[in-house]
């Protein structure tokens, strides 16, 4: 069994009656890239601030490599690097000075790798922070986290303000970190980013964890998108178990053909058995994207 980089048990944070995080149970294995998803205000940053020991839990505990995130935060910090969502830095320092400072704040960093990252992210390190754009300031904190080669990278919406080219540079850097066996805790609401990088995700809503698992597990919770083309008579599909969002329309290219679009949750067998007596000319199915999953899960959670 893999040892845990992060473990939270019943983690709760209450701000004067407003529950920002409610009874969170979470475990992230060493070497894993873990996606932490949720809309604005879901409690992602609160969770990260608790993991960093910046705030104290109202209830519950969080550990980082077995160290209490609140009590032993100095020891824990030596094993982790933090990239905040908003880069609040010292305006009068240059990018290079800031990187040197943040490297020393962490205690150790790889100067050669820092140079690689500065080139990769196309950062001009001679300029003062106050002259940087938001994206360039974000590059500084991103480089400062990655260059430490810390066993755990805690990234709070790290690519906010980065352009698509830099997003590629970020993904390349995360792939390198994974190769080196680093654990990555990636909070984001950019679903394509999480889908491309993470092996496991957790979904948070209004401070509560609503799903946690591998991408395939999460996908199994959702529906499969099915497109069918039938020539001739169309069987009755409305009562097929697990089928939803049924839409039918005549094919624009052939008047005898009917196009059917639907979603199927659970086994495909009931649908296939109903279709077996029909002249199916095309049947396409695809798994939902994480974005579609996200919306489905959130909608169903909202109904609950």
């Amino acid at each position, binding site marked *: 069994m893999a040892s845990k980089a992060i473990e939270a048990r019943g983690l709760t944070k209450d701000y004067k009656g407003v529950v920002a995080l409610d009874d969170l149970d979470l475990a992230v294995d060493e070497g894993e890239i873990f996606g932490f998803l949720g809309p604005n205000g879901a409690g992602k940053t609160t969770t990260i601030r608790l993991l960093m020991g*910046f705030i104290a839990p109202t209830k519950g505990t969080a550990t980082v490599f077995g160290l209490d995130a609140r009590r032993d935060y*100095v020891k824990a*910090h030596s094993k982790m*690097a933090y990239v905040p969502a908003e880069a*609040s830095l010292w305006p009068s320092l240059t990018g290079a000075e800031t990187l040197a*400072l943040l490297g020393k704040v962490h205690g150790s960093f790889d100067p050669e790798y820092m140079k690689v990252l500065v080139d990769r992210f196309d950062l001009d390190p*001679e300029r003062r922070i106050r*002259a940087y754009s938001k994206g360039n300031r974000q590059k500084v904190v991103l480089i400062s986290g990655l260059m430490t080669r810390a066993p755990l990278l805690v990234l709070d919406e790290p690519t906010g303000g980065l352009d698509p080219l830099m997003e590629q540079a970020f993904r390349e850097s995360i792939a390198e970190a994974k190769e080196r066996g680093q654990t990555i805790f990636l909070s984001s609401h950019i679903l394509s980013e999480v889908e491309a990088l993470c092996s496991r995700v957790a979904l948070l809503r209004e401070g509560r964890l609503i799903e946690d698992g591998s991408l395939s597990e999460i996908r199994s919770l959702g529906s499969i998108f099915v497109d069918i083309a039938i020539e001739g008579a169309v069987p009755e599909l409305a009562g097929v178990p697990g089928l939803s969002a049924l839409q039918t329309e005549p094919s624009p290219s052939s008047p005898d053909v009917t196009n059917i679009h639907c979603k199927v949750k659970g086994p495909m067998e009931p649908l296939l058995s109903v279709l077996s007596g029909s002249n199916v000319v095309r049947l396409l199915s695809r798994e939902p994207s994480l974005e579609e999953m996200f919306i489905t899960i959130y909608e169903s959670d909202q109904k609950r």
Partner: protein
Amino acid sequence: MILKRNLRNGAIWGVGFAIYVASNGLTYKSLYKTKASRTALAVTFGNNRTMNALFGPSPGMDTVAGFTYFKASMTILVIAGIWGLLSSTKYLRGEEDAGRWDLMLAGHSTPLRQTVKVIGSVLAGIIPIVLFMTIGTVVGTDASLLLAFWFALTAGLMMAMFVSIGALVSQLGSTRRQATLIASAILVVAYLLRTVAESGIGLSWLDWLSPFGWMDYVNPMVSPNPVWFTPAIGLTLLGIAAVIAIAGNRDAGAGLLRSHDRHNQRRVFISDPRTLALRLSVISFLSWALGVVVYSLIVGSIAKSASKSLPIDSISKILDKTSGSSSVTAPSPGNAAASSSHEVLMSFYALGLVASSIFIAVAAAGFLTSIRQEESEGRLHQALSGRISRTGWLASRALSALAMIAMLGFLAAVSLWAGANATGVRLGFGPMVSAGLVDVAPAAIAIGFGLMLFGFVPRIASTATYSLVAVWILIEALEGIGGWGHWMADLSAFHQLAAAPYQPINVVPAIAMFGIALVAGVAGVASFSKRDLVGD
């Protein structure tokens, strides 16, 4: 919103100015009751070139109104100038730096309209200042409403001029810091021009080039000459016209002057956030140090001439009110004249040290504010994401602040000592340095109190620390008026200081104050290590 904030801010400053002017007038009336004593004082100051160079001409010094104007006007005019330039650079260039200016321009406003609106709002804040200062002047000096209004208007127009100058340099500078530095330099040059003009070396025409000089010519409390308001109004309007010409024709966020946004890496003091704090405090510390050194040198060097023929009872009364200890015993009749003159001189130095102590306490509140800003602006999260403990971070910041105030106390004492020595007055170096260090005890309390609040209620730490120092200063000012119970004066930390070298150094209250500061500071650091990090 800016208008509302400026009106409120103006009302607070107006009340402060009113109390300051009133206390000066009332103190004069209580100290110089007879015609003879007032005449003696007027002769002393009227013939003293150094005092005139520093504080301005002294017509009508034998009247309450004349003395009050002489005593209070320069301080008020300097503060008024600082208020004006800081207000306009804050709300113009500061808003551009923070990125909020773009949001304003994204609405129906244009750069020109928005700029004029902000300048108008800041200028509106001057109205309550003039109003309250007029009332304070009438109450404290028995001057007519019109004379009091002319006096208040000198402050109001000084503010307006520097609002206009601040607005102009906000168009030129590309950062708030750059704009503030340029405007501050203009204020300093204006003051120096007037000082040189009044120093009696044949350059009195320089007065015409300085806003301070124009206000001297107005002479509002003795023989008012409001025509001299014209250049002030002209400069204000000229500055605003220049702003209007520039504001609509430049890019938002950019200034006409180039900023130095690029330089090679300087490795000094970036080994961790604690040493970085020292690096970032250098300019602030050096500014305070320069102010304290210049002020103390001036006091040290003019004391001998300024104290000549000042009656001992006048100055010792002020000291007795300022400090908690009673004055020295009366000299024997045989040595009365020499001893009295020596006492006046020593008390002049003592007043200089007490004034430095007040500056240093204000500086201490500023150092505490910079600690809080690291947290409120989000940089502390970054600084504490590594191997530095919270306790270590805050304790080192507190020690740096204490070291800086100790250095300021030392510099004040040494500069005073040097100024005195330059005029042939031999003061003991050791006792003066001891007195300087003891006099930073109120600043230490301000830091300790601020740290305690930072640990328990961080959001109010900065404002409350400044407020504490302001209350102490207010108590000192009100104490001059008299009629307050001793318990009230005891609430001021400045009141606990012995007026060395006029009185012997009393280390007991100083040790008690340092002890209180230590306990409060330790409690604050302990609480900070347990509490959540919080933003604004």
